[in-house]
């Protein structure tokens, strides 16, 4: 799930230069869409596809007014979307049950191992699609938009279209990741829009590096492995959370000092 999330965030942030801090909102939209549909009898595969489509629709809605802005401004606007989604989910109680959350989301596999295999296959499909995209002519244009949008424009590229396309594809993937999460955890509530998860995903991106799909994969694995480590080696449960947070901070700091572009990054942060 995290690999899909980081790969998709890397598409918009690393390859197109769109600082999209609202990625979590699309992940949450995907989770809620899939949960609500399956709880109402829709098969999980349709629900998962719908999760991607609904998240992509929200991505499109965000992209339309923001396709003319970049950098910090886009970061602020997109981050605002997380808080809007959080507020909507908390207050639209007739649909989402608000803070009570949605329990009993059906699992999509009978065992955890099968779910792991399924998640791995899905992550591989997303990786392959992202790889094909960034290696294509369109992917190169996305990278040109990141490096210098004005130069891309005078070379005849419709940069707004590519920014919208990048956001829509990356938010579709985030929606799929959200669906996967909902069916794994079987219970979701508005806390999924918490900045904690955003920080984890951004840490993965920073550690792995921007504009590198391998970086996205290894960043996710390294950060996730480190976040699980305190649970194994620390005996006092109260210390697990704080030590995990400190580990994240330390890892990001070390990477930023010694490898400012991340382990596999190809562009500056």
């Amino acid at each position, binding site marked *: 799930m995290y690999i899909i999330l980081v790969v998709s965030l890397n598409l918009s942030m690393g390859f197109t230069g769109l600082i999209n801090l609202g990625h979590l909102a699309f992940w949450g939209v995907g989770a809620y869409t899939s949960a609500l549909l399956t709880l109402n009898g829709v098969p999980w595969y349709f629900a998962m596809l719908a999760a991607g489509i609904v998240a992509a629709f929200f991505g499109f809605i965000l992209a339309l007014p923001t396709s003319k802005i970049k950098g910090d401004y886009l970061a602020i606007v997109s981050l605002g979307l997380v808080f809007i989604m959080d507020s909507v989910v908390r207050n639209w109680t007739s649909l989402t049950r608000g803070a009570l959350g949605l329990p009993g989301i059906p699992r999509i596999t009978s065992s955890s191992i099968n779910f792991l295999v399924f998640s791995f296959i899905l992550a591989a499909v997303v990786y392959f699609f992202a790889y094909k995209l960034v290696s294509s*002519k369109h992917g*190169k*244009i996305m*990278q*040109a938009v*990141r*490096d*210098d949008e*004005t*130069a*891309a*424009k*005078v*070379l*005849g*590229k*419709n*940069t707004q279209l590519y920014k919208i396309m990048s956001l829509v594809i990356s938010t579709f993937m985030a929606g799929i990741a959200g669906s996967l999460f909902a069916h794994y955890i079987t219970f979701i509530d508005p806390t999924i829009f918490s900045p904690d998860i955003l920080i984890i995903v951004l840490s993965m991106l920073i550690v792995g590096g921007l*504009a590198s799909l391998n970086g996205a994969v290894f960043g996710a694995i390294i950060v996730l492995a480190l976040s699980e480590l305190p649970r194994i080696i620390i005996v006092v449960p109260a210390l697990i959370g704080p030590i995990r947070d400190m580990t994240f901070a330390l890892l990001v700091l070390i990477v930023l000092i010694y490898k400012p572009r991340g382990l596999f990054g*190809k*562009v500056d942060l």
Partner: protein
Amino acid sequence: MMLSIKSVAKNFGGVKAVNKCSFDIEENKITALIGPNGAGKTTLFNIISGLIGIDKGTIKLQNENITNLQPHKIANLGISRTFQLTKVFRNMSIKDNMLLAKHTSEEEIKKILDSVYLHKPLDTFASELSYGQQRLLEIARALLMPHSLLMLDEPTAGVNPKIRQELKLILKNLKKEGKTVLLIEHDMDFVMSVSDTIVVLNQGRVLKIGNPKQVVKDKKVLEAYLGK
């Protein structure tokens, strides 16, 4: 006529950056746009290429109205340009930079790069090139892009004398090939040696249009550059 600019005006707040500017650019000629700093040369370049919208006037490219069209549409109609501060895609290779201008063979890319005296492996990243070499890459990219009008914004700015000489040769070759070029340049020797026509701008207005000999003797032009 390649490009026709009629009564173009652009204000930034109270500043008249371009003030009722009118002139034509003939086909197969090199036209230089000169003037003191702040005359509105780069603003006019940005207006022609669609990066800045105008308040009044019309711009026609080969009789097609391109006024206030989006930059990518203008580029696809045949205007290719470079910038005063070089704009290459720094995190991409020379080859990828070139392919963004036109999807073509390595052979054609190498031919264009040779014509601008940039002899570097195609997989070299643009960020690894010196400033002068980035300038040459940007010109090569603009040349590769299908175009009818090439606009070069201060191509010799910040480059060493060797590259300056190479740029002079590039412009002379373009002249021989009958290309239509609009050039902004401060180096007067350079301008005089390559231009067919010179348009002098001052405070957003056209001060003088003529051939290099006419322009260099004009009193108003001398005043604009040197003061009374």
